[in-house]
């Protein structure tokens, strides 16, 4: 008897306190987390952007506020504009190859093959390895003295190649490494997309006499649009910021000609202690990434509306529609 009374009291207390209590619990949980987040993430990011407006060379130096001079020198110095341009086309190239090869692999993995789970695993394995570790294996292959590839070339009676002296080969191996690491993940996401396409559409297409390729063109590809948006954005954003493989495979060489922008930021910050330029480059990189994301996202949602027949009513609401529904 007493217990039920107590419970009832508690429920009515909860009802009365309702909103208030929620806010208190939320504060207790979120405030510590966000404080730590500010220290390790929020503040450094803002601080980094602010650095772009200062001339600051070396930790011991006094920072000097110079307005937009760093940005002016960014766009007037070919070292930076080249690095920026290289980031963009290298990122685009890596994305295109990774997603293309991944899509092909996903089409194959989507067939009812024996051991497809095994194939999925071995394709994805490179993604879970550490860049530091696996780039070193690539470096053993590419070593100029006792590198595996040069040993093979020598055995075949060809001249060994000093990969490190060549811009083309440097870029080539950076791309190979990036694709090696990314292709399995891309294949898995494409595969999930392929499997989410409504199977009855394929049957309908077959009834209409569609062949393998027209099914791919008119059923699979439109059905993949949402996932394609996602995978292109995330891969492009990731690939534009590639720098670890640059750091470990070419280290920017020869003569900085394989530098990409994020590598340049690292180099300015930790080698040349040019903190102002590192900050300015960071801000430019962030602006590019954010603009690309927003533009692509807008574009893909807009073109979706034009091309697809609105079978379902438009999304309930962009901001947490489901929670509003639940409140009623």
């Amino acid at each position, binding site marked *: 008897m007493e217990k039920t009374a107590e*419970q009832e009291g*508690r*429920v009515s207390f909860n009802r009365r306190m*309702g909103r208030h209590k*929620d*806010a208190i*619990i*939320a504060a207790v949980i979120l405030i510590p987390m*966000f404080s*730590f*987040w500010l*220290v*390790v*993430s*929020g503040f*450094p*990011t803002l601080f980094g952007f602010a650095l772009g407006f200062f001339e600051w060379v070396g*930790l011991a130096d006094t920072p000097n506020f110079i307005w937009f001079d760093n940005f002016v020198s960014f766009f007037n110095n070919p070292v930076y504009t080249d690095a920026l341009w290289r980031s963009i086309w290298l990122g685009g190239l890596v994305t295109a190859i990774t997603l293309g090869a991944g899509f092909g*692999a996903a089409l*194959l993995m989507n*067939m*009812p*093959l024996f051991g497809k789970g095994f*194939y999925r*695993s071995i*394709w*994805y*394995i490179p993604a*879970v*390895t*550490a860049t*530091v*570790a*696996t*780039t070193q*294996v*690539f*470096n053993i*292959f590419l070593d100029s003295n*006792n*590198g*595996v590839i040069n*040993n*093979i070339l020598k055995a075949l009676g060809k001249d060994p190649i000093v990969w490190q002296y060549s811009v083309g080969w440097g870029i080539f191996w950076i791309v190979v490494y990036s694709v090696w690491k990314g292709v399995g993940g891309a294949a898995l996401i494409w595969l999930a*997309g392929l499997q989410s396409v409504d199977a009855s559409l394929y049957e309908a297409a077959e009834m209409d006499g569609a062949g393998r390729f027209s099914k791919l063109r008119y059923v699979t590809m439109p059905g993949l649009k949402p*996932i394609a948006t996602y995978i292109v954005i995330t891969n492009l*954003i990731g690939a534009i910021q590639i*720098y670890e493989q640059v*750091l*470990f495979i070419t*280290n920017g060489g020869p003569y900085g000609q394989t530098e990409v922008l994020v590598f340049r930021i*690292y180099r300015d*910050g*930790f080698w040349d202690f040019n*903190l102002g330029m590192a900050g300015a480059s*960071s801000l430019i990189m962030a602006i590019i990434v*954010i603009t690309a994301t927003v533009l692509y996202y807008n574009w893909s949602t807009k073109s979706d509306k034009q091309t697809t027949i609105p079978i379902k009513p438009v999304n309930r609401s962009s*901001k947490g529609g*489901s929670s509003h529904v*639940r409140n009623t």
Partner: protein
Amino acid sequence: MSGTRNKNFKKQFKPAYFFGHIVLLGIGLILLYPLIFMVLAGFFTKTEFTATVLGIFPIPKQPTLENFKALIIGSTDSSVAMYFRNSVIRTAYNTFWAILTSFLAGYVFARLKFKGREVLFLIMLATQMIPGTLAIIPTYLEFARFPFAGGNDIFTGGTGILNSWWVYLIGGPSINIMGTFLVKQSLEKVPIEIDEAAIMDGTGTFRLIFQILFPLQLPIMAFIAITTALGTWNDFITPFFYTTNDNLQTLPAAITRLSSVGASPGAVINYPMIITLSLGITIPALLIFAFFQKYIVQGLANTGIKG
């Protein structure tokens, strides 16, 4: 049943399927090749490795397990085992916090009603767009000038929290935004009646979160735990940039210091040691993947479709 199986088996030899097998297996093995090479190289002694003309599949004449032993129980060069231990501790710490913070924050954003919830969540997601690597240098400055730490009088004078365990400890309790997003999404599919029934029964918030809702989210929590664990395990940035003390190094940072990035210019690179350390990173990562790949595949598919 055996009939359908037989039919499927025969189907495997249809040209399209056969092509699929050849390509997936062939390229798959090529993708695995660098790791196979790494394992083979792990059986070499240091002297034999440098003396051998390396071929595609290097086979040692006197295979040794020393490199593997050094990782676990240490050897004359005992720091390898220490790097390994540091890696394990750091990974366990970050994973623990990732699970806790993403679940709690996910719960807050999915279930609790308070002013500004949607706005806060959107701002949080937006910060995810800012490239994380850009904060490396400012974080270095911040750690170096950390108030009242490491001999700093307010901002200057000492080394701040650089080169101390604080470098690792401070990041853990920060909010895991991707995890929060995934938990929020997943919790919103759990009927709120479960919460209401539990509260009716007199369950407190704490028990509701950990005894009732948490067990329902195990697959998504496993995904968050694995991605955080692998991310921390493979990360060289924090230990390499913010610590120099040998006691604080992890496996990836130790490799970085031995590689062309960290070694003095022109030095001969100690590849046998790098291989040992690389095996120390790669084998546990592969084991984690082997045990939990179901969750990884599922999680990737989920993030992809909903993204």
